[in-house]
């Protein structure tokens, strides 16, 4: 995993939709962090295909970035956009909880 990894997928260009900005804070490549990234990617591909952006921040390399988003727990997922900001801690293995947390249920319909 690189310092910062940006993945952007645009599916429907015609629809003027807000891009989801997601940040995943990790501290080194731990199994938990890897799991979190995989879980997140999975959820995004299923529910937000083409309209999301994941930024992975490794705090071991950029420790000062932890202050801005008030990060203690590793891994932490921060939904920067759409507003309001939401934070989720843990490896995101509980899919239900993540969907609720990200407020993604309505899109599943």
């Amino acid at each position, binding site marked *: 995993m690189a310092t910062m990894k940006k993945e952007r997928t645009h599916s429907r260009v015609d629809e003027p939709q807000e891009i989801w900005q997601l940040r995943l804070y990790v*501290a080194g490549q731990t199994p938990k962090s890897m799991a979190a990234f995989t879980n997140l990617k999975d959820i995004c591909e299923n529910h937000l295909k083409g309209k999301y952006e994941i930024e992975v921040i490794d705090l071991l390399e950029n420790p000062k970035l932890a202050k801005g988003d008030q990060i*203690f*727990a*590793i891994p932490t997922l921060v939904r920067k956009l759409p507003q309001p900001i939401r934070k989720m*801690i843990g490896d995101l293995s509980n899919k239900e909880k993540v969907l609720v947390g990200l407020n993604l249920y309505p899109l599943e319909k």
Partner: protein
Amino acid sequence: MKKPREISTAVKRSKVPTGIEGFDDITLGGLPAGRITLLQGLAGSGKTIFGLEFLIRGVRQYNEPGVLISFEETEEELTANSSSFGFNLQELVSSGKIAIDYMSVNPAEFIETERYNLDGLLVRIEHAVNSVGARRILLDGIPALFYGFSNASAVRNILLRLYGWLKEKGLTTVVTAESETEMIRHGLGRSLPDCIVLLTEQISNKFATRYLQVAKYRGSLHGAGEFPFLIGENGISLIPITSIQPAYEVSSERITTGVPQLDTMLGGQGYYRGNSILVSGEAGTGKTSLAAHLAHAICQRGERCLYFAFEESEHEIIRNMCSIGIDFQPWIKEDLLRFRSSRATMYGLEMHLAIMAREIKAFQPQLVILDPVTNLLSAGSFDEVQAMVTRMIDFLKGKAITGLFTTLTGSEFQESPGEVGVSSLMDTWIVLRNLEMNGERTRLLNIWKSRGMAHDSKVREFLLTDRGVELVDVYAGPSGILIGTAREAQQERNVVEQVRRKHDLNKQERQCKQRRAILEAQIASLHAEIEATDIEMEQTHLEAEQFEVTTAKMHLGEAKQPGRRLERQKKKS
């Protein structure tokens, strides 16, 4: 080979001074270097201020950068709070001497899913420490973590790792917590920190007083007991009034009392410097006047006097002392004399003591006056005031400052000589009394005791004149002790008596002389009489002889004695 040496330097440098006034004294050097100190106290007990001062003074006084990890207050709040104690936190932050990281642990802000750790905390702290090269760190409000995260074992785990890391890094750490049980409940018991400092607030007589206690200090002696402290404009000041070693240097220098006659009574030289003097007396006996004389005398020497007045205001004292010829104004202008008037009921006793100690430390006076100590009884019990005065004396003696305490006694003087029970602690005790007699009140002064000097135990009459205090010998005569008008009258009577006696003597002498003159005259007349008598007697003799002669002639003529008659005739012819 190197190891023993390392140990010895470690022992030497085993403490880190906090710079907090008084704290380094009671801990004999400060906090354990490179170790964790638990600062425990309820909300508002001064934990954060203590911690802030530890960091800020660390930078300012010991050039040790620091980190502040706050779980409770934001950086803005901390900056604002510290500025009210005269600390410019912002400046130290922008100059890279202090790093602040506010950790907002608000469970409402995030959703927990499974499996996480709190490595982020460690990352942030490590970053902050490295960014300024910190030697000191304050972790303020750590227990918030336990309320923020449901996974207590994750919190415990990270804290143990954090503490381990801090020790390894050799950072001197202060951790705050509200209560010990809080820490124990979370598996961070007493054994973890090397030093535990308790901050409490106690209310006695309706006055709240802050106390600091060093409850534990691994491998070090420390002052036991609770030490009162103040949070003032310069932060925390702890007043270890009860010094650990009660050994003071004793001066044999004498200082004038400001009243020449009193100096005479005290072996001719006045008080000892650094002694404690008690002036006790009823209301209006002249205690303040006597204190003012000493203050005046000290200022005249160019020394400083700090006057704590619990009854009168500065202006009242200045005005009143003017009436006995003492002008304090020039001394105040020269800043040799400072008044600190406060109502006894303004704070608790400990606060009074702490404030006084702070003023004394700041002004460095040679004389301290407390007038009257008994007023403090409204802020504490008898025992507390006694204890306070004891500590004050101790404090002053430790600094070789002369202390003058006045106490107000009730009118039943004989029953309670030392109203505050401090007379035994004092070196010199001057008792002032009012005596009502013959329809007037007279002030009396007596030296009850004065250690280490010959002193006059006779009672003197104490006069307040427009030239100050004057002491007058009382009149001891055949009719007893006379004072006041009676003494004056007696003195007058004495004069009159003397004049009268002289007059009488003259008169007697004159009478004697007269009598003598009369007698002499009598003697002269008697002599004359004797002479006259003598003359008379001679004549009588002569006459008698003549008579005899004529009678003999007659016998011869009658021839009864022819022979003699012839003879006579022959003679006649």
